[in-house]
C-alpha cells in the first residue's frame, strides 16, 4: 500500500459528550479517592461494596454484553478467589494482601478447564453449565475441612492485624484497594475494547460464522476474555471476603449475591456499554439504601424495576440516555469523519489501491 488517497481517513474516538463526560468521571474518581476525609466508616464500607459490584457488573457485561458469553456462574470465581486468599493466609501464612493477586492468577488458571467444559454449550445451555460448575465449586469448598468445611471460618486476629496497624488504617487501606481494583478492572476493560480485540469480541457476539470468515479466531478470543474476566472476578472476590473477614461456601459461592444481583445491575444500567453497569450499580445502591427498611417489599420493588426496565428500555437506563441524548463517557467510538472537500478542482482520490489483492510476497499466515 503506497499511493494513499489525497487525505488520510480521520477517525475520532471521542464525541462532544465524552469530552465532557470523561473529565467529570475523573473528577468523581478523585472525590471518591478522598472519601476517607469526607465520610465515616459506614460510608467507606458502603462505597467499598459499591466498587465491588461495579467491578463485577463490568466484568459480567464484558462477558455477556460484549462477548456473548452469558454466564450465571460468576460466583464460581468470586468464591474461588475468596478461598484462595483465605487458604494463602491461614494455611501458608501469606500476607492477605498478596492473596489478592494470587486469587487473580489462580482464578484465571481455573478458567481454562471451566471454559473447556462449558464452551461446547451454547446460549441457555452455556448459562446453566456455568451455574453447575459454580455449584461443584461450592460443594468442593464445603469438603475443605482445613477452612471449616461447610460452616466456613474466620481470619484470626493476628492475620487481620498483619494487614495494617490499627483498625482505621486497615479500613482506609481496604477502601483504597477496593477503589483501585475497580478502576484497574475498568481500565483493563476500556483498553481491551479500544483495541482491535474489542471489535473482534463484538463481531463474535453479533455473528460467529461471519467473524470466523473474516479471520477472527473465535474460540481463542473468547477463551482469552473469559480467562481475564475470571481472574478479575477472583480478585474482587478475594477483596470482598478480606473486608468481611469471614468465609463460608454458601456466602462465597452465592449465586444470588455474585451473579443474580450483578445481572440485575447490568440489565437496569444497560448491557453492551461500559457505562451501563456503573450507572446500574449506582441505581441499585440508591434503591437498596432508600428501600431496605421495607423488608421483603424491597425485593418486590427490585423485581418490578427490573421488569419495567426490560419492557420499557431493553437497552437499560444508559442505553436510553446514549440513544436519545448521545451521552457517552468513555471514548470508545470509531467515527469515520467526512473528508474535507477537495480544494479547487483537485481530482478525486484514487481508490484503486484499496481494492488490489494482497501482495503475495509480504503476506503470509503469520499468526
Amino acid at each position: 500500500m503506497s499511493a494513499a488517497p489525497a487525505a488520510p481517513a480521520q477517525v475520532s474516538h471521542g464525541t462532544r459528550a465524552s469530552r465532557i463526560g470523561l473529565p467529570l468521571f475523573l473528577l468523581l474518581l478523585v472525590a471518591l479517592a478522598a472519601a476517607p476525609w469526607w465520610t465515616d466508616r459506614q460510608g467507606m464500607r458502603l462505597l467499598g461494596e459499591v466498587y465491588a459490584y461495579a467491578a463485577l457488573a463490568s466484568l459480567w457485561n464484558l462477558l455477556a454484553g460484549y462477548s456473548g458469553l452469558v454466564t450465571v456462574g460468576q460466583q464460581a470465581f468470586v468464591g474461588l478467589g475468596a478461598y484462595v486468599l483465605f487458604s494463602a493466609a491461614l494455611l501458608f501464612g501469606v500476607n492477605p494482601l498478596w492473596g489478592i493477586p494470587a486469587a487473580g492468577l489462580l482464578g484465571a488458571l481455573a478458567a481454562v478447564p471451566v471454559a473447556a467444559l462449558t464452551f461446547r454449550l451454547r446460549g441457555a445451555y452455556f448459562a446453566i453449565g456455568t451455574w453447575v460448575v459454580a455449584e461443584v465449586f461450592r460443594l468442593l469448598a464445603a469438603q475443605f475441612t482445613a477452612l471449616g468445611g461447610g460452616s466456613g471460618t474466620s481470619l484470626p486476629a493476628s492475620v487481620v492485624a498483619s494487614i495494617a496497624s490499627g483498625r482505621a488504617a486497615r479500613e482506609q487501606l481496604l477502601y483504597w484497594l477496593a477503589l483501585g481494583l475497580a478502576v484497574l478492572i475498568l481500565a483493563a476493560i476500556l483498553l481491551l475494547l479500544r483495541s482491535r480485540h474489542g471489535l473482534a469480541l463484538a463481531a463474535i457476539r453479533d455473528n460467529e460464522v461471519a467473524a470466523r470468515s473474516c479471520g477472527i479466531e473465535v474460540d481463542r478470543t473468547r477463551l482469552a476474555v473469559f480467562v481475564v474476566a475470571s481472574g478479575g472476578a477472583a480478585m474482587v472476590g478475594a477483596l470482598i471476603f478480606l473486608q468481611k473477614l469471614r468465609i463460608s461456601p454458601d456466602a462465597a459461592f452465592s449465586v444470588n449475591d455474585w451473579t443474580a444481583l450483578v445481572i440485575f445491575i447490568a440489565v437496569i444500567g444497560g448491557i453492551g456499554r461500559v457505562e451501563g453497569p456503573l450507572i446500574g450499580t449506582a441505581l441499585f445502591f440508591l434503591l437498596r439504601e432508600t428501600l431496605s427498611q421495607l423488608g421483603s417489599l424491597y425485593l418486590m420493588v427490585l423485581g418490578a424495576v427490573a421488569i419495567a426496565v426490560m419492557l420499557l428500555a431493553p437497552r437499560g437506563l444508559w442505553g436510553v440516555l446514549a440513544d436519545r441524548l448521545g451521552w457517552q463517557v468513555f471514548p470508545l467510538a470509531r467515527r469515520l469523519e467526512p473528508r474535507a472537500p477537495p480544494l479547487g478542482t483537485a481530482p478525486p482520490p484514487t481508490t484503486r489501491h484499496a481494492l488490489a489483492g494482497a501482495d503475495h510476497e509480504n503476506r503470509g499466515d503469520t499468526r
Partner: protein
Amino acid sequence: MNPSADAAPILALRGLRKRFGAVVVADGIDLAVRAGEALGVLGPNGAGKTTLFGMVTGTVRPDAGTVMFEGRDVTALSPARRCRQGMARSFQVPQPFAGLTVFENLVAAASFGAGEGERATYDRCAAILERCGLMARANERAGGLRLLDRKRLELARALATRPKLLLLDEVAGGLTESECAVLVDLVREVRAGGVTVVWIEHVLHALAAVADRVVVLHGGRLIAEGRADEVVRVPAVAEVYMGIPVDA
C-alpha cells in the same frame, strides 16, 4: 475441469463430497481455478452452490475430498486461517456484525483478515466504503441497514480482508439495472487488481460481463463448463433451467 497449464491453480478442489441427510449436495466435485481468473458458478436453487463456498472457506466440513489453496491442503484449516491466507467470501444472506457500525465492520475484517494494525486499516477501509457506495452509511449501525446496503457491506467487508481469492454469493440479486452495472464495474476493478474471483450469480448478464469461464452445478455435480453464452446452450443446462426464468 481443465485449467490451462501455464498458471498454477490458486484453488483446487478434489473429489469434494457432502450430503445433508438424504440430500447429496456435492457428489465428487473436481474444480481448479487459475490465479487471476474470474469464474462464474451457475446452478438452480438448491444445487449446492452456497454449500460449495462453505466447503472452500471452511464453514462446512466436507464428507470427503480436499481443498487446495495456493498448492497447500487447507481442508483441515479453520475458516479464520483460510481467510488470513487470502480467502474471503460474501454471504448470500447478509451476515453483518449488526452492533458495529459499517466502518467498524470493515476495520474488524481488515485488521484480522489482513493481519494489519487497526490504524493502518483506516485509509483502506474508507476507500473501500467510498468505492462500494457506503460512505454515507459509514457510522451507522450495520444492523439497521436496508437489504441493498447489507449486500454492499458483504462485498466491502470481504474486500477489506485483502483477499487473493474472492468468493461472491449472489451479490447482484435485487439490484436495478444501473446498480448492477456499478457492481460489475467494481468486480472487474477488483479483478484487475490481481484478485481471483469466483462468483455465484443467477443474474446471467452480470456474470457474463465479468467471468471468463462459467461452470454449472446441478445435483452435486458440475454438469457443464465454458463461456457464459456457450454454457446456457448446452442441452443439459437448458433442461436444468427449463421453466426457471434466467435473466439473460
